[in-house]
């Protein structure tokens, strides 16, 4: 049964990858990538990585695909044909890459083999056997993520932070003194014309936000944690933005506040580490936070997960805001230009007469 699912999923993935390579349409390429990501998330579940599956589904299928689609909306879907020479070269390089990897696999332990060093190395036992006792947290991914390799996660949060700042620096809208004239159609967002959709979707937003809080808090027991929660929270806001338009959304949570929240989350995370140092432990040694080391660990993990959640939610929202605002400005400018062109076309025959 497992094998059958495995094979089906792999076949799916292969055909999608092939389709993505041959398609000329950027829109379908983007959608194919979204599906690819979703199916790989399913594969992750088969491979026992539920946390990763959740993240991949939220990030790959959700955020990345949406970002690509927004980008395409302002850049267009046109692709010029590729020259043959380049394709041959690309193929050759890819084949070299593949050949090297296949060579590498020849001495690998087969998939799932219990003799593989990955499973025989003492740390594997540590993570699966000692950690739940030591931490009192059933989900082994969470303490590994937040404590044993908590420093990597700090780095990961820093990367997210960088991305947020970077997107702001690149396409973040400057607080203009003379805002663009707002075209009426865009004032209320695209969903204006779909009242039913709007009414129903509106009901979804609170549960989504609530679910985000649940995922944030439930990371100790099931799949989830700060990152997933942040993405889900941001997707709730994203839905709001889709329904009511980016201008409205920007008024609900102001971009400046988001910018500060981005920084705040990372600071909370790092601050925990500094507090640990002040308490006489190593950086990110949460055991110093309370008398009982296990309590300390729980406090620490909860706090840093909160930091991660804040930064991720704020960054994803900022990114989506920025992309959407950019698209909106783009569309509006184009509309204005068209309208001016139309006005000019109307006036010119009169003046000619």
């Amino acid at each position, binding site marked *: 049964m497992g094998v059958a699912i495995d094979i089906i999923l792999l076949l799916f993935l292969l055909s999608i990858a092939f389709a993505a390579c041959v398609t000329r349409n950027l829109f379908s390429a983007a959608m194919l990538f979204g599906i690819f990501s979703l199916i790989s998330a399913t594969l992750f579940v088969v491979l026992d990585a539920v946390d990763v599956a959740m993240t991949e589904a939220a990030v790959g299928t959700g955020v990345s695909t949406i970002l690509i689609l927004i980008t395409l909306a302002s850049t267009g879907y046109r692709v010029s044909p590729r020259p043959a020479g380049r394709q041959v070269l690309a193929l050759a390089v890819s084949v070299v890459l593949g050949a090297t990897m296949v060579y590498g696999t020849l001495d690998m332990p087969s998939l799932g083999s219990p003799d593989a060093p990955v499973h025989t190395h003492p740390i594997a036992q540590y993570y699966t056997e000692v950690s739940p006792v030591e931490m009192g947290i059933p989900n082994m991914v969470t303490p590994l993520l937040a404590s044993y390799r908590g420093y990597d996660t700090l780095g*990961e949060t820093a990367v997210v932070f960088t991305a947020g700042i970077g997107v702001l620096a690149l396409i973040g809208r400057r607080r203009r003194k003379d805002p663009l004239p707002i075209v009426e159609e865009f004032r209320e967002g695209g969903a204006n014309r779909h009242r039913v959709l709007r009414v129903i979707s509106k009901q979804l937003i609170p549960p989504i936000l609530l679910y985000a809080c649940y995922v944030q808090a439930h990371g100790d027991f099931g799949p989830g944690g700060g990152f997933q929660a942040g993405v889900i929270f941001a997707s709730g806001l994203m839905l709001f933005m889709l329904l009511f338009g980016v201008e409205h959304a920007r008024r609900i949570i102001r971009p400046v506040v988001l910018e500060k929240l981005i920084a705040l989350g990372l600071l909370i995370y790092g601050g925990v580490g500094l507090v640990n140092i002040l308490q006489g432990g190593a950086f990110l040694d949460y055991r110093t936070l309370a008398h009982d080391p296990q309590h300390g660990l729980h406090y620490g993990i909860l706090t840093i997960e909160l930091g991660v959640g804040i930064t991720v939610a704020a960054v994803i929202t900022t990114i989506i805001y920025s992309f959407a605002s950019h698209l909106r400005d783009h569309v509006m400018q184009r509309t204005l230009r068209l309208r001016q062109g139309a006005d000019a076309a109307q006036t010119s025959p009169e003046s000619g007469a």
Partner: protein
Amino acid sequence: MEFLGYINYWVFIVLMMSGFYLFLSARNLVKKIIGLNLFQTSVFIYYISTGKLRDGSVPIQTEGIESYSNPLPHVLILTAIVVGVASTALGLSLILRIKDDYGSIEEDEIDAQDVLS
């Protein structure tokens, strides 16, 4: 299963190759990003597969289950996915700016403009 174990790896490799091929051959910048993402996602799949233990289960402690898959690759890939989406977001915003400033997102047309300037 032994045989299938290798097949799995090779399928992952084919996936990586297709992503890498798309990345190399495309001249459209968005398409390059898509290719890169495919490539990276395939690498993630490979990584996760290394942690899989035959007959192991999801690494969440449950009554009555003795063997769990190794959670370490999961953590690594969680980090890598985040890093990946961060790069993607940055790359896409760069594309938006390039579109604004050059009016095109085709590599050749951009290069041609740079040569002229």
